[in-house]
């Protein structure tokens, strides 16, 4: 029994809402005779998704590989850079402003350059996924490292902890929740980065499928590929969410 004022989401109402939306889409496309190359009906998209399942899986795995490698590189290097900036004063006054400056570059604009430098293959997509995912992880981790409560740092000092012990036993675990938050922001961005990379120049991947399908007016396939990208992104986000359950401690 919900107390008055308590917010509850009713799964029945949510379900009914989305079913209604789907029905409106399906039937308005039919009734108003919308051309299939502009907006296919939901059932057409479903059929296209099923028919192209082999193709979508094949290219989805390519995109997944790009996303995962870019994300892992961003997580590893992002944490390393955040730690460096936090620990080394010179890095704070040199690398940190540089990170902020680089962060401000519209990363989409770098995609053609990456294709020029690294070619049409895997490398340029990895770097694009990395570029999109990197900064949120650096910024979030830095925030976590800097936000360790002063009373805990004093407690560690009273225990005679050196800087390394303080870092390893206090600052790193204390910054973990922030790092995970950064990962949650970064994962969908890594997917965007990989797709952008594929748009600019590629031979495969879901971004490539979207480009080719749109180019040949196979709009239902475009939607099916978009659906595949969305599912991929959701699945990746959910995995990060699952991992972050292990870092259950929050602000102290």
């Amino acid at each position, binding site marked *: 029994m919900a107390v008055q004022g308590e917010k509850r989401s009713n799964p029945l109402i949510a379900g009914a809402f989305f079913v209604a939306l789907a029905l409106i889409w399906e039937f308005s496309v039919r009734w108003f005779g919308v051309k299939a190359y502009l907006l296919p009906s939901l059932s057409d998209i479903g059929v296209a998704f099923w028919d192209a399942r082999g193709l979508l899986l094949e290219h989805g795995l390519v995109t997944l590989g790009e996303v995962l490698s870019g994300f892992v590189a961003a997580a590893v290097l992002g944490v390393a850079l955040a730690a460096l900036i936090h620990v080394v004063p010179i890095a704070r006054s040199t690398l940190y402003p540089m990170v902020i400056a680089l962060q401000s570059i519209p990363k989409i604009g770098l995609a053609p350059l990456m294709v020029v430098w690294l070619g049409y293959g895997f490398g340029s997509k990895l770097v694009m996924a990395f570029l999109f995912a990197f900064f949120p992880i650096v910024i979030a981790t830095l925030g976590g490292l800097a936000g360790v409560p002063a*009373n*805990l740092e*004093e*407690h*560690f*000092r*009273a*225990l*005679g*902890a050196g800087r390394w*012990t303080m870092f390893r*036993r*206090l600052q790193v*675990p204390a910054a*973990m929740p922030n790092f995970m938050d950064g990962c949650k922001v970064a994962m969908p961005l890594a997917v965007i980065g990989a797709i952008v990379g594929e748009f600019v120049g590629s031979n495969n991947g879901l971004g490539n499928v979207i480009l080719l399908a749109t180019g040949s007016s196979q709009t239902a396939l475009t939607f099916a590929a978009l659906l595949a990208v969305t599912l991929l992104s959701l699945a990746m986000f959910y995995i990060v969410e699952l991992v972050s359950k292990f870092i259950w*401690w*929050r602000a*102290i």
Partner: protein
Amino acid sequence: MTEMAIRVDGLTKYYGGAGGTKALEDVDLGIGDCEFVSIIGPSGCGKSTLLRILAGLHGHDSGTATLFGEAVTAPRDDVGVVFQTSNLLPWLTVTRNLTLALEIRHGKAAAAAADVAAMIELLNLKGFEDKFPHELSGGMKHRVAIGQALMQNPRVLLMDEPFGALDALTRDRLNIELLRLWQRDRKTVVLITHSISEAVLLSDRVLVLSERPGRLIADIRIDLPRPRDPSTTRDLPAFGDHVVELSRIMGVV
């Protein structure tokens, strides 16, 4: 006269270096080995600063502070500090929090060899060994914090208003526990508090600091019989006399 555990001579401390706000002025005091001494004073009188100087966390501007004849220059392994906040690590269980100080000072082997079960027993925390701090009440967290300090078996225990943030009832219970622990181990204890009755109940001596800059304005011996117990000791006429005397010194009455 027992051996002096703590000696402070002419201790002066400024915040923000000489020329800044004077926190402590020319403080002299001696605390014997195995003595339980409370330091009371109004807010901002520098009593916490004094404790942090003894803990090796803050420096000072003139005078000397020595523990067992050695000048305090850094945190020492034979000193346990208990702060106002329990300072438990939220990602460690009660057991791991209890052995944390040992682990940091002496390594994993020392922590693994420690008799945690006995400490759990002593602190009445049976059944909570594998709980995390957020699953404990405020009073329990503070018991773990004190346990962590005791696990190091320190010669000196420095406590900075360890129960200051707790409600009166919990505070009373922890005072009983603290009395019990001290009567068993007889460590040198310096307790910072702003509660006169707590100071009288627990201490052999109560030192009073003045308003900032903190100066030692009274050194009162509390000759109530031990073992003490809040329920009976507070009814002794001498207890009331001491409380009145200290209140008068602090200008509360």
